[in-house]
């Protein structure tokens, strides 16, 4: 691994992080070190149970590492695979849930949640409830809520895995647009190598709780999945994945 862990520009740095869950003999994470630059789009791929979701949970503080060091920015937000929207709140209220408290308490703040609803093109659905939305729309609300927290690092845990290809493609475009507009550091977990290569600056391949290899993706955006360079990169990662 050739990561510069002392890079002061790093958005998130993990040094020798290990984690073993109670009642499981195998470590979920074993001595993981990784530096993610501020404003970078990093994608973590790997088989189920390789530790990629645990890594996200440790960065957000949902789990504590047994060993190692973590340097994370003050504001970290997350988009969940399930959407994790609160069913008793409207779309607008769900997005408002993510706003920092000082924003919510400001008397002259207006309606800051509207900006994030516009960003994910859901302004017309503000008064709907999550059950009235499609899977893709729910993920958009989850994304708007996460952005409303004004994060320095945005974490996404397989956010598009349950969506159809067309919706996934639309959300990929929107995510890239938002990433470029906001400059937020994005760390996304995916089980699809093609998805990772089409979005990320770097793809981290994890195996058995360790980082197997990091692949820089130097292709220009928008990336064409039919392109030769794209195909070669996917094949390279896939070969390592199945090795």
């Amino acid at each position: 691994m050739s990561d510069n862990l002392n890079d002061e520009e790093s958005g998130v740095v993990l040094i020798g992080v290990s984690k073993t869950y109670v009642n499981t003999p195998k470590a979920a994470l074993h001595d993981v070190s990784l530096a993610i630059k501020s404003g970078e789009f990093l994608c973590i791929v790997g088989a189920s149970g390789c530790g990629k979701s645990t890594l996200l949970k440790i960065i957000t503080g949902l789990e504590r590492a047994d060993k190692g060091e973590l340097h994370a920015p003050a504001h970290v937000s997350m988009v969940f695979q399930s959407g994790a929207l609160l069913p008793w709140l409207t779309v607008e209220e769900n997005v408002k849930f993510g706003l920092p408290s000082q924003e919510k308490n400001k008397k002259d703040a207006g309606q800051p949640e509207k900006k994030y609803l516009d960003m994910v093109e859901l302004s017309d659905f503000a008064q709907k409830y999550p059950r009235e939305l499609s899977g893709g729309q729910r993920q958009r609300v989850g994304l708007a809520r996460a952005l409303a927290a004004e994060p320095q690092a945005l974490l996404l845990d397989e956010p598009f895995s349950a969506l159809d290809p067309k919706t996934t493609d639309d959300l990929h475009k929107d995510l890239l647009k938002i990433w470029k507009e906001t400059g937020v550091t994005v760390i996304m977990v995916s089980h699809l190598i093609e998805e990772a290569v089409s979005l990320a600056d770097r793809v981290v391949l994890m195996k058995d709780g360790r980082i197997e290899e990091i692949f820089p993706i130097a292709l220009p955006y928008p990336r064409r999945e039919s392109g030769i360079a794209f195909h070669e990169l996917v094949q390279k990662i896939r070969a390592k994945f199945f090795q």
Partner: protein
Amino acid sequence: MSQSTRHIGTHHRHMVSYPRSSGQSLYTLILVPLFTLAIVVFLVRIFAGHTVTTEHITFGFLLEALGVTFLRLTIAYVFALIFSFPLALLVTWSPSAERIFLPLFDIMQSVPVLAFFPVIIVFFIHWGLWSGAAVFILFITMLWNIVFSLVGGLRVIPQDIKAVGHIFGVRGFAYLRRILLPAVVPYLVTGSLLAFAQGWNIIIVAEVLHTYLPGATESSDLFGIGSVLVHASAAGQEQIFLAAIITLVIAIALLNFFVWQRLLQYAERFKFE
């Protein structure tokens, strides 16, 4: 692990107001009508001054008896609600707490509460709280239905939903109010429905105190639809018994239609998919 730069984006976050609170709507839906009814019935009862007798029965008398019984059930329900949340939270606090308290509560739930009724009556009569004995027995009967429903509800809250609270800095009482309470509303409604059903069953026994007191007469009984039913039955007054039972059934049906069915429908919006 070094925590020097471990910040999870929850700084400067405080408890915030909760606009268009669904919880608030629920309180309005349940508590306001219940308390209004309770106050009206209470005032009627105070000024009417009936004793437990079935000699001169009118429809108004039956309605008043029903109202007083409903007031007892409501008071017991409110107490059961207040106590059930901390008990359910205690059980689900941690796996260790669950291992200790769940079997304990299960045993307490299984103990036939009426077996202790004579002792409970003596205790409350000692303090001059005759109606307190009935309310207490109703409270105990209702409590476990709500506690176990809430425990079920708290257990099935998805991990991601709990994580949302952490990620967006909702902690402590705000977490309870904004995530846990709304998440268990469907379970609270079904638990309350079952609690009231049990309460209606028990009321027949709970108002007839003289059966549990040596040497006591019917004058020791509490005024209410339960005692009216028992006295009419004992005196062979079939028409009065029939009128009382019909009044009770209609009241339960109306309560079911106008309160429980609507609450069940309302609770749908709180369910996770």
